[in-house]
């Protein structure tokens, strides 16, 4: 009778966050749908209640079905049969259960049979699915592609594809090629206009495509013959029903083995264009990637949750020297840090998701009517925060997933190294999370601008205005001191960078991490002020950890000068 929503108070806390009120307002637009749809809410309270009930269903399917299938899916994996993917049998059962529960199109508008739920709730669903089976989350979480179709495609394309996503069809985003990984501007898959048939034709190869044989695929392709960079790329949709794409092979991976990673061959495959030509990478992939990064942050958080729980359970059961190993200080400290990192990942993930929700929803509204000056302001404000927070959330959550999974095995000792416990699968599954959808190093590249332009500092100053309780006051003051350290090292790096080109780049990860630690500490501190019983202890643990990491990075920077650019060249 496991339910991954009702057994997780931290998730429930985030659903009741005060910002949800504004998100619901924007998402439901005066609750106009209530007149046309019998499942639309009447008011904000009704909407929040529906979200909760839907998340309970997700939690039930995750706890009862998906988690139970995870081990067999890991062993069985998908296969290529007649040029197409055949999922592991457990994967098929997972999809059947989620589709019977009607959980496709979670964020899509009701006119496309969607559930019209916020991105925040979708991230919660993704987190729970990943806790049950991280590899399966890739397949299911890709319904996110529909958001990009909803945002940029014409109405007839939306009507053709979106209801199918709501009915449970799966998606893929076909970006990577053998010579275009992190550098997507080098994509060569060719799209040519077929005048007679009135469709685009795709020819070429894609590699490392998650769920590459999905029903509906977003494909990045070169529509402008003779071009070689990002400006010649467009976004198209390939419909599996039309045929023309073969799965050449499925990669044999370290982890997330249930998720088919495909090499695809396009042979005159028909496709329709999304939005404008030449905007494929510049605009649409950027939007797609931001959503996908939030998805990986959710996946990572779910994995940390699973790895922490496995370790906690084992430490309570395993006895050595006449007592459970949880009684030993060294084990307890590891568990406390794992718990704090999991809560920290979640805190940053949902803070980011809330920012995304507000600006995305205002963007949708702006397509139907012009926004008031105040709304435009609000949209810009949250857009900037979402852009700044998304790489942080992806980077921290995925690095923590790896750390927590690593420690989970450590707590299991020798047994954890055997295939008998789930922690070894979690460890293998976690390893890709700080790599795909942009490595941690690339998240730093996206985030460093927000160090330079002050997005993080401004937000930290806003957090400093939060109300403190007696128990959180001292930590609040400590965070002010740490912010001063941050300002000092940023100033130092920027001034040396003027003389030594590449100096800021050299320290960029350290700077981004310092900002991240302070931001996460502030979000957790706010939680601790609101709900001491649940959050004060893990917040204290995390702030201690953050202070140590910040002092490490700051002393490295302060002991470094321009010559380091040469040293590491």
């Amino acid at each position, binding site marked *: 009778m496991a339910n991954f929503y009702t057994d997780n108070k931290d998730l429930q806390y985030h659903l009741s966050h005060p910002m949800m009120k504004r998100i619901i307002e924007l998402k439901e637009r005066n609750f106009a749908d209530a007149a046309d749809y019998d499942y639309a809410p009447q008011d904000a309270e009704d909407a929040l*209640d529906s979200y909760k009930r*839907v998340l309970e*269903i997700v939690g*039930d399917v995750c706890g009862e*079905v998906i988690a139970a299938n995870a081990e067999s899916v890991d062993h069985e994996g998908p296969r290529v049969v007649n040029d197409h993917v055949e999922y592991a049998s457990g994967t098929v059962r997972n999809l059947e*259960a989620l589709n019977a529960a*009607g*959980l496709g199109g979670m964020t899509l508008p009701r006119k496309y049979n969607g559930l019209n739920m916020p991105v925040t709730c979708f991230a919660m669903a993704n987190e729970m699915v990943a806790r049950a089976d991280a590899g399966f989350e890739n397949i299911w979480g890709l319904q996110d592609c529909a958001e990009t179709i909803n945002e940029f495609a014409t109405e007839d394309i939306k009507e053709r594809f979106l209801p199918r996503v709501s009915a449970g069809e799966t998606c893929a985003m076909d970006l990577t090629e053998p010579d275009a990984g992190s550098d997507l501007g080098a994509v060569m898959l060719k799209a040519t206009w077929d005048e007679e048939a009135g469709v685009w034709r795709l020819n070429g190869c894609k590699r490392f495509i998650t769920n590459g044989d999905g029903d509906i695929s977003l494909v990045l392709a070169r529509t402008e013959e003779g071009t070689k960079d990002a400006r010649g790329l467009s976004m198209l949709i390939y419909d599996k029903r039309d045929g023309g794409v073969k799965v050449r092979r499925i990669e044999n991976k370290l982890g997330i083995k249930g998720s088919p990673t495909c090499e695809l061959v396009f042979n005159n495959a028909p496709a329709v264009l999304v939005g404008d030509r030449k905007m494929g990478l510049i605009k649409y992939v950027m939007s797609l990637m931001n959503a996908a990064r939030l998805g990986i942050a959710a996946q990572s958080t779910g994995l940390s949750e699973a790895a922490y729980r496995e370790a906690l359970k084992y430490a309570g059961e395993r006895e050595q020297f006449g007592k459970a190993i949880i009684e030993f200080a060294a084990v307890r400290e590891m568990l406390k840090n794992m718990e704090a990192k999991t809560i920290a990942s979640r805190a940053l993930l949902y803070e980011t998701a809330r920012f995304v929700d507000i600006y995305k929803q205002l963007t949708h509204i702006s397509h139907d009517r012009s926004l008031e000056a105040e709304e435009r302001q609000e949209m810009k404000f949250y857009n900037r925060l979402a852009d700044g927070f998304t790489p942080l959330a992806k980077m921290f959550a995925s690095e923590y997933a790896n750390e927590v999974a690593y420690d989970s095995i450590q707590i299991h000792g020798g047994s954890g190294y055997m295939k008998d416990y789930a922690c070894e699968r979690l460890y293998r599954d976690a390893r890709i999370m700080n790599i795909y959808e942009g490595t941690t190093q690339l998240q730093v590249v996206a985030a460093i601008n927000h160090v330079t332009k002050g997005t993080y500092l401004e937000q930290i100053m806003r957090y400093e205005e939060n109300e403190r309780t007696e128990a959180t006051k001292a930590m609040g003051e400590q965070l002010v001191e740490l912010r001063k350290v941050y300002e000092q090292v940023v100033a130092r790096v920027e001034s040396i960078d003027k003389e030594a080109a590449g100096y800021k780049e050299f320290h960029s990860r350290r700077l981004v991490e310092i900002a991240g630690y302070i931001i996460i500490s502030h979000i957790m501190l706010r939680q601790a002020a609101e709900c001491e019983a649940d959050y004060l202890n893990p917040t204290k643990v995390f702030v201690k950890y953050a202070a140590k990491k910040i002092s490490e990075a700051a002393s490295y920077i302060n002991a470094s000068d321009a010559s380091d650019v040469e040293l590491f060249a």
Partner: protein
Amino acid sequence: MAKQVPDTRNVGKDAMTPEGTVNRAALPAIFNPEDLNALEMALEMKDRLGEATVHVLTMGPQRAADIIREAMFRGADGGYLLSGREFAGSDTLATSYALSCALRKINPDIIVAGRQAIDGDTAQVGPQVAQKLDMPQVTYAEELVDIKEGEVTIKRRLERGSEVVVAPLPAVITVNSSAKECRPRNAKRVMKFKYALATSELQAADAKAQEFIEARPYLHIVEYAAADVNPDAEQLGLAGSPTKVKKIENVVFQAKEAKRLTAEDKDIEALMQELIASHTIG
């Protein structure tokens, strides 16, 4: 037909009162597990027929309406709550009598129920209902093979195998836990039906809720009191229940002695004879 039962699968030490009755307050009330298998089979019949509707009938206190809502979340079109003081203290005979009175009024084409409820484990109510309504019964149903106008084909799970039987309709089917698990709650159905109320709940609700449900008849769970189903009062509740509980005993399994057997035929033969003689098996 479905029953709300105390969850006896996770029994703690406070599960029984000192008087030896079930301590309902200590156990969460749940949808009887095999009734969920039955609901799935009924929904599958609907899926195959297309035009059919599925309604849940339950007898119990007001809060038993919870399982009707639960069934609606999973695919049922609506339900009937049979509720009232007159039904209190019913044994299986009185229960099946009350249910059969309600069923005469509802007049369904097919009745599907779980084999037995986990609080009593009698497996009597389904067959008794069939008897009272003079319908054929198919027990131990595991799989719906086919359903069409006037007949249903069912695979039964028996002790030493399975058999496939065809029954004319109307009929009563009782379903085993080995049948397909019930489908999960459906997101849109939960949002649509979450405010569904039985008549007595509706009367206790505020004016706004009453108005809301009045405008949406699909949210109204039909509630029958005893008088609504024209019963013979003598056959209801305690008066209609010949079963008398004499004594309740806690059975504690204790290993008294251990016996080591070899894998030789004569040892196994001797054990078999001992078990048959003590009526443990056979």
